[in-house]
């Protein structure tokens, strides 16, 4: 491979302060304005919590009524209310 000349002193090689020429990213944002970034993170997580909670719930709801419960109510209906009779 091509041997690139190693810079004598890496600190003087790039005169730009680290990161300032780069677009804002989550990490920098957090360093510069921790409160704002924190609030954004909290919002994102709260949205995620709501979605996952409903997804978990709806996954069960979508299963409908298992046969066992249809059968149970049918038996109760046929047998009458034994507990309440006496």
């Amino acid at each position, binding site marked *: 491979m091509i041997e690139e000349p190693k810079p004598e002193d890496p600190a003087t090689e790039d005169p730009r302060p680290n990161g300032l020429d780069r677009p804002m990213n*989550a990490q920098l944002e957090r360093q510069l304005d921790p409160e704002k970034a924190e609030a954004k993170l909290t919002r994102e997580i709260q949205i995620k919590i*709501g979605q996952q909670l409903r997804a978990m*719930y709806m996954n069960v*709801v979508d*299963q409908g009524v298992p046969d066992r419960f249809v059968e149970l109510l049918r038996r109760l209906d046929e047998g009458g209310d034994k507990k309440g009779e006496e």
Partner: protein
Amino acid sequence: MRLDPAVRDAMLGAVPSLRAYAISLCRNVDRADDLVQETLLRAWAHADSFEAGTNMSAWLFTILRNAFHSEYRKRRREVPDGDGTYAATLKSQPEQHSRLQFREFRDALAQLPIDQCEALVLVGASGFSYEQAADICGCAVGTIKSRVNRARSRLAEIMAIDSADDFGPDREQRAVLTGTDHR
């Protein structure tokens, strides 16, 4: 005594939501189904205490919650479902990634105190108002609100730790920031 068919149908219609609620409380499908069965038996036996015109679903949720607290609560932290049992009951099999997220979420939910968990699910998933949730849990509306808020912030804490990578800088960015990227 036969039950009014309308009442019976309403009971049957509430079963899917009752199961969803029971599973979030019990964390085990078989036990949750037993709890739903117990709920239906109790509801049937006390059908005359249901006031026509009131919310059947809220009435059943109240019965389920009472049954849970009297019999099932102490077993909540025993034998949670393995990865398979719960996933196997899902109608739409989630992808590997979302199944993992799903599991993480359920684990996070399981870390909440039961009073916070039930309040969060009633309000955040079952679609009850704070007032209805307060009736179901037999407490003040303000109590429900504070339980839901505490549940949300606790979950956020747990999930922020678990998913730090999702929100943090990506690998390339991290390499740049830590100076480990030698191209």
